[in-house]
Every structure is written in structure tokens, then in C-alpha cells.
């Protein structure tokens, strides 16, 4: 057996924080330009996280550190599994496990603000989960495999079979990237936040871990976007860039919605775009065409 899968995992574990931090830097720069500001230096996210590690250790309860560490580990694990070419469903479930740990960390702190953040994070989880499962199933229906290794090396232009699923996925990607209008549990923008939502009680190195986990997560999610275009790497990379730019744009032109709207949006796109797309696809495959 080959060891290439291990290389993918190790490369992800080492490079993803760098890539994720850079993406965050670019993101802030573009956002600033959209708002008519100069914006911070490209490497500012690294400076921020570096500084967080220098801070005094302050907690509400020590248990919160444990859950955040578990969150970081399982986010990294699910991303590593993804880049090792593992089973997409298992990756999705590991990903859910990671987020449950973050939520538990916020609960453990027993603080009104982080409690509300935790509840909202759970609502987000509930909002995006159907679509993410349908996306995995859609990829399976086209490529006949749940394994990322097979999906990524396919010669089939998946996007042509799954345009609806892709649009649905991009919608819930907004939730996952913590972008407006669906950044209901915690936001990058100070102007629409209830204190700091789920991360209210995390500080110093713990908050830095949350940030690094978010970088890992973003790289993994962009990898997921890439799968839809995997038959042609150049188009794939362009598509990922365009998608991310579109997310930044949406982030800057919308205001946060209420949780009801976030939940409904996630569920409606899963139903209207995801299921419909898959239904047509399965009709075509089983004999319609």
C-alpha cells in the first residue's frame, strides 16, 4: 500500500494553519478595501495569534480549556482525514464532534453570553448539517465513492451534475466561515456582535487555539469546494478563489439575520437545491435518460 495518504495528512497539519492565516489576512485586506479602509498588514492574523499566546492565562473554569483543546484536535483530525483522502461521511461526523466540543466549552464556562453563543452555534450546526450530508451523498452519486481520494481524482466534471448541491453548499459555507448574514454565534465584525458570542469567555492561548482551529476549518472547507471542480485543477483553484471572494462580498453587503432566518435558509436550500438536484440526478441515472 502507498503512503501518499499519510503525506496528505501531514502536509495539511503543517501547512493548513499557514494557508489559513494567509487567507484570513487576504480576507481582512479585501474587506478593508471594500469598506474604503487601508486594512491591516497581510500577516496581521499571525501577529494577533502570536500575541494571544503571550497573554495572561485567565479562565472562568479550567474545564473550558480542555474542551477547546479537544475542538482544535478534532478539527485538525477531520481536516487531516480529508486531505488523506478518507471517507467523506466519517469526516463530516468527526467535524460535528469537534464543534460539539466547542459548544461544550462555552457551556462549561457558565456565562450568560457564552451560553447564548453556544445555543446559537448549535442552531447553526442544525442549520448546515442536512446540506453537508446531502453534498457528501451527491458526490457519491456522481463518483460512486465516498472517499475523497477517489472524488478528487475523478475525470467527471462533478459541478455539471451537482449545480444545485453546489449552490446549497456555498450557502451553508457562509455559516461555516462565520460570515454575515449567518454569523449568529460569533462574528469577525465588532458591529454586529453580542459581546463575542460563543468565544466570550475564551482568552489568551485558548482563544488562539479557537482561531487556529478556524484556520484549519477554512482550509478544509475550501478543499470541499474544490471537490466539485476536481476534474480540472486550474478551474478548481479559480473556482475556490471566486467562491471565497463571493463570500467576502456577501459578508460585507449584508447584516446579520436572526437565528430563525439562518435555520430556515439552511434547511430550505438543502431541500430546494440539494434534494431536488439529487432527485433529478437519480432519475437520470436510474433510467430516465
Amino acid at each position: 500500500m502507498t503512503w501518499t495518504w499519510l503525506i496528505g495528512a501531514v502536509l495539511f497539519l503543517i501547512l493548513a494553519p499557514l494557508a489559513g492565516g494567509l487567507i484570513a489576512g487576504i480576507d481582512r485586506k479585501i474587506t478593508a478595501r471594500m469598506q474604503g479602509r487601508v486594512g491591516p498588514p497581510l500577516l496581521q492574523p499571525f501577529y494577533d495569534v502570536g500575541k494571544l499566546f503571550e497573554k495572561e492565562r485567565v479562565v472562568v473554569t479550567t474545564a473550558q480549556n480542555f474542551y477547546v483543546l479537544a475542538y482544535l484536535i478534532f478539527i485538525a483530525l477531520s481536516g487531516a482525514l480529508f486531505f488523506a483522502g478518507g471517507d467523506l461521511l466519517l469526516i463530516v461526523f468527526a467535524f460535528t464532534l469537534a464543534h460539539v466540543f466547542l459548544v461544550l466549552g462555552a457551556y462549561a464556562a457558565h456565562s450568560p453570553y457564552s451560553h447564548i453563543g453556544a445555543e446559537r452555534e448549535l442552531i447553526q450546526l442544525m442549520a448546515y448539517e442536512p446540506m453537508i450530508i446531502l453534498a457528501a451523498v451527491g458526490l457519491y452519486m456522481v463518483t460512486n465513492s465516498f472517499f475523497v481520494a477517489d472524488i478528487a481524482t475523478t475525470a467527471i466534471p462533478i459541478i455539471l451534475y451537482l449545480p444545485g448541491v453546489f449552490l446549497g453548499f456555498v450557502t451553508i459555507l457562509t455559516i461555516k466561515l462565520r460570515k454575515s448574514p449567518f454569523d449568529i454565534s460569533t462574528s469577525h465584525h465588532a458591529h454586529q456582535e453580542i459581546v463575542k458570542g460563543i468565544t466570550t469567555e475564551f482568552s489568551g492561548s485558548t482563544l488562539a487555539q479557537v482561531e487556529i482551529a478556524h484556520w484549519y476549518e477554512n482550509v478544509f472547507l475550501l478543499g470541499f469546494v474544490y471537490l466539485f471542480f476536481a476534474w480540472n485543477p486550474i478551474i478548481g483553484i479559480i473556482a475556490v478563489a471566486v467562491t471565497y471572494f463571493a463570500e467576502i462580498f456577501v459578508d460585507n453587503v449584508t447584516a446579520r439575520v436572526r437565528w430563525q432566518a439562518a435555520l430556515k435558509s439552511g434547511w430550505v436550500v438543502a431541500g430546494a437545491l440539494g434534494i431536488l438536484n439529487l432527485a433529478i440526478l437519480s432519475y437520470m441515472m436510474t433510467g430516465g435518460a
Partner: protein
Amino acid sequence: MQTLLFLILFPILVACLLLFVKRTALRYAVVTLSALAIGGASIYLLMRYAFEGAVYFAAPSETVSLAMVAIEMGLALFIIYMGAKFRNYLAIVLAVIQAALVVYLETTFSGNLHAVNNLFIDQFSIIMALIIGLIGSLIAVYAVRYMETYHHHHPEVRDRQRMFFFVIFAFLAAMFGLVFSNNLMWVFFFWEVTTLSSFLLIGYSETEEATRNAFRALVMNLLGGVAFVVALIYLAANEATSGGIELSSVLASGDTAVVLIPAVLIGFAGITKAALMPFSSWLLGAMVAPTPVSALLHSSTMVKAGVYILVRFSPVFAGTFAGFSIGLVGAVTFVVASAIAISQSNAKSVLAYSTIANLGLIAACAGVGTYMLVWAAILLIIFHAVAKSLLFLGTGAIEHRIGSRDIEDMEGLIVRMPMMAVMMFIGIAGMFLAPFGMLISKWAAIEAFVQAPFGLVFIAILAYGSAVTVFFWAKWMGKLVTVTRNQEKVEKGFFQEPWAPLYIITGLVIATVLLFPVISSMLIEPYVLAIYGATARLGEANVAIMLLMMALLLILPVSFLLFKRSAKRLPAYMGGRTSTPDLHFAGSLGLTREAQTRNYYLNEYFGEAKLFLPGAVVCAVLILASWVLAGVAL
């Protein structure tokens, strides 16, 4: 065969013995010893028959069958008596109909009622026997001390513990009988015994509510029982093609159209017993019973009999529209019950809705019935039994200590009852998180539905259903792990003995995950292979990753040591006001106020009032559709 007979007859002996035991200490000894014997015998069963495939036993027929009919008539008389006493005429009517049908069957078709082999054992029966023998008897052990405390707390309830334990052990015997019987007449007999046992247990406290709910359970299950007898009559009447009343020959019958009708009728009996919608209300009402009864009904007995029979008949359902329809009943039940669970704050009712949801999922797998789905269904049965019994027993113990079964009152349990909180945590993780059991099964179900014809309908339902599942479990978990301040530990003082079963079951929750590849390859795969000629399994790489995740989860708590030395502690942020760690803050006018945190229940969207009726109507229509479709197929 001796082991089988032992497992059926020994609990009956114990039951009779317990009728005469009055002192708790003595009862504890008797129950513990018998639990050891029953558990040991079921493990012996595993070692003896695991590698032999299906083995059939002739077993004495004539006298036993006659005795069973006599007992059935006695039970009918008892139901009529109880119905008359509490003026529940529907129960009387159903009992009379059922008895009349049995008499009709015995007299008209007496020639067709002989089975060559009355008893049998195969891997699926072994799994069921292990669940009943291990989980069921552990619950019985727990129940002894629980009931003692129960009567302390509820002096108004008449102490009928001797009857209580008699019924519990009779129940276990009936469950063993049910899963070992190859003669469908016998299956039906044991089926009826479980119905009556649950009736007696639910009504234990003799309050008006308990009696009402007990009768509701009785009526709904009798309805299923009537369908069961009709199926038997149909089988006996068409003996030439249907295979008569022998389970094995019915399943082997080539004439699927003829067999489908009784299969759907027995499936209907399974649906009532498994409390799928629209029959869920009996299981919800059963909450009024003492907690060990709920644990028993939900995990190892009763509802598991319902899904057992559905899974048994799933080769008949496979590929038929009637079966698809039954599968949809399960799937709709799964998503609706999971959604309603969000709106519940009573721990027992969350657990009840979650049970209903998972039974729905099992039924969905059984109804569609491809080999991969049967594999997934059996996995679900195992993992659900283990995790759910732990959660019920835990909830019972917590209720005795903190005086409430409301999830909001379990806030900070990790501080007040650390051991208990950890066990509940593991139990809940077992219900919905990777890499624990229920998630493995759900995963398997998704993979299987992708490949089933029209499986997309189920995938869509499963996607939404599993999303809401995460929500209601995670917020409960959150309440448990909240670290509250200035609260005292209340763990000590509760009778310590009932905790032994809890420790063992907690161990089982983890062990079933670690041993899952063995369970699958040793028991489930050979069973599926024998029936379908093909079997499913999880890829080796995935199993390895699951085990890795499990290992990580077991190691992670060590990192607590890292955090011990660190960090200054500050009170939570309260909008900048001066505050204390127990969430008191300086309000205006110099008053100190207290802040509280409460979970979302989203009643407006997921309330019982909003969802239950539509769900029940859809399922009722689907059940009718399954009958029509089975009729059309003929």
C-alpha cells in the same frame, strides 16, 4: 437446547420465588444471583452457538401448545376483568376479539398448526438474547434498590414489590421465548405475555394517570395482537404455499406475494409494539412507571420485540412497495420524534422521543430490507439498547438525588454528581457522537440507503433527522458539563449498590464500540450472509480511524492535568457589572441580582402540539397504504 430452555424457564422460576420474598436484602441477593445466572447463560449461549449458524430444535409441542392456549385464554379473562373493573370497554372488546380469533384458529385449522421445529437459535437471536440477558438483568438488579427508595419517596403508593419483580422476571422469560421461538404460535404467545407485563408494570403506582396510560399501552398492543392472529389464520389457511406457522419456512417460502400479507400484518403488530407513530403515545405515557420499568421497556424488552419481528421479516419486505411503505412509517417517525425531542425539557420524555425516533430508523431499515440495511438495523438495535438503558437508569438515580428529572435542573451536574455526570455524558455521546455506536449505525444506514432503490427519500429524511438529533442531545450535554459554583456535592448518600449496574453498562457502551468489528464479523455478518448471500461491513481503514478517535477521546481527559496549574480564575463577563462566580451581579439601586441560563426549546417550531398530529396522520396513511399495496401485490 438446554440453554434455551434454561433461559426461558429459569426466569419464570425466579419470578415465582420472588413472589414470596418480602425483605429487600434477601430480594437483592436473589435478583443478583439470578441476574448472574441469566447473564452467564446468555454468554454461554454466545460461545456455544455463535459459529453454528441457525440451529433448530424439535422441542415438545402438543402439551406445551395446549398449555399456551389455556394461558392465553386466562390472560384474556384477566384483561376482561381489569377492563370491567376500570370501565375500559375497548380493552374488553379487543381481548374478546383476539380470544375468539385464537379459538377459531385452533378449531378450524388444527391440522395446520404443527411445526416441526418449535425452537431455534441463530446469530440474530443470540444478539437479542445477550441484550435481554445482560442489559435486562442488570436493570432488574438496579430495580431492587431503586424500588426501595421509590417507596421512601412515594409513601402513598401501595407496596406491591413482590408482584413487581414477579412481572419483571416473567417479562424477561417471555422475551427469551420470543426470540427463540420458530413456531409463530409460540411467538404470538410470548408476544401477548410481554403486552400484559408492560400493562401491569406501567400501572404499578395505581394512580389515575398510571392506570389510564397502562390501558392505553394495552389497547394499542392488543390491536397489534389482533393483527398478529389474523396473520396466523392467513398463514394456516394457505399452509401449502405460505409455509404454515413455522417462521423459518415462511421466510423461505417462494411465494412472496402470499407471504407478504401476513408479513405486513405482523409488521403492523411490530409497529404498535415498537411505538412508531401513530402509536407512540403509549410509550410516552409509560413514563409514569418507576424508572427501571422505562429502562426495561425502552432498551432491552418490549419495543425491541417490535423491531425484532420487523427485522426478521425484512427479507419478505425487501423490494416490495408494502415494505417500502412500512419503511417510510419508520422514517417519518424518526424525523418527527427527533424534532419533538427538541421541545422537551423533561429528561424522560426526551429519552422517550429519542427511543421512538431510533425505533423508527430501525423500522425504516427493516422495511426497505436490503442486506446492508439489515446489517445497519441490527447494529442500531445493539447500540441503542446499551446506551438508552444507561441513560434511563442514570436519570432515575439523578431524580432520586436532586428531586427532579428536568434537564434544566441538571445544570452543573458535573459539580454536584461528578461520577453520574460522566456516565450520563458517555451515554449521551453513545447516542449521537462519532465514534460511538449510534453514529456508526446511522452512518451505515446512510451508506446503505444510497444504494437502495428510491433510497434518496430516506437519505433526505435522515439528513434532517440527524441534524435535529445533534441539537437536542448537545444542549442536554451542555447542561451537564456546566461548571457551576458554590454548590455542594450530593453524590453520596444514595444507595450505592444500584450504581454497580450503571458502571457495568457504562463500560458496555465503550466496549461495544471497541468490540464492534468483532460483533459485526462474528454475529451480524454471518446472519446477513446466510439470508441474503451477501453482507455489508465497514471498511477496515474506517474502523481503524474510529478506533483511533475512540482512543483519542479516552486519552484527552488526561489533558486536564495540564490545565490544573494554569490560570487565574475570574467570574463570567456580565456586561461589565461587578459579578460573582455564581452568576450574581451588581444590579441598579445597589441590589444584587442573579442571572440564570436556560436552554432553547424552540416550542414554536418543534412543539409537540405542532408536530405530533401531522406525523401521526402521515404514518397512519402509510400503514394503510402498506396493507393496500400488499393486497395489490397478491
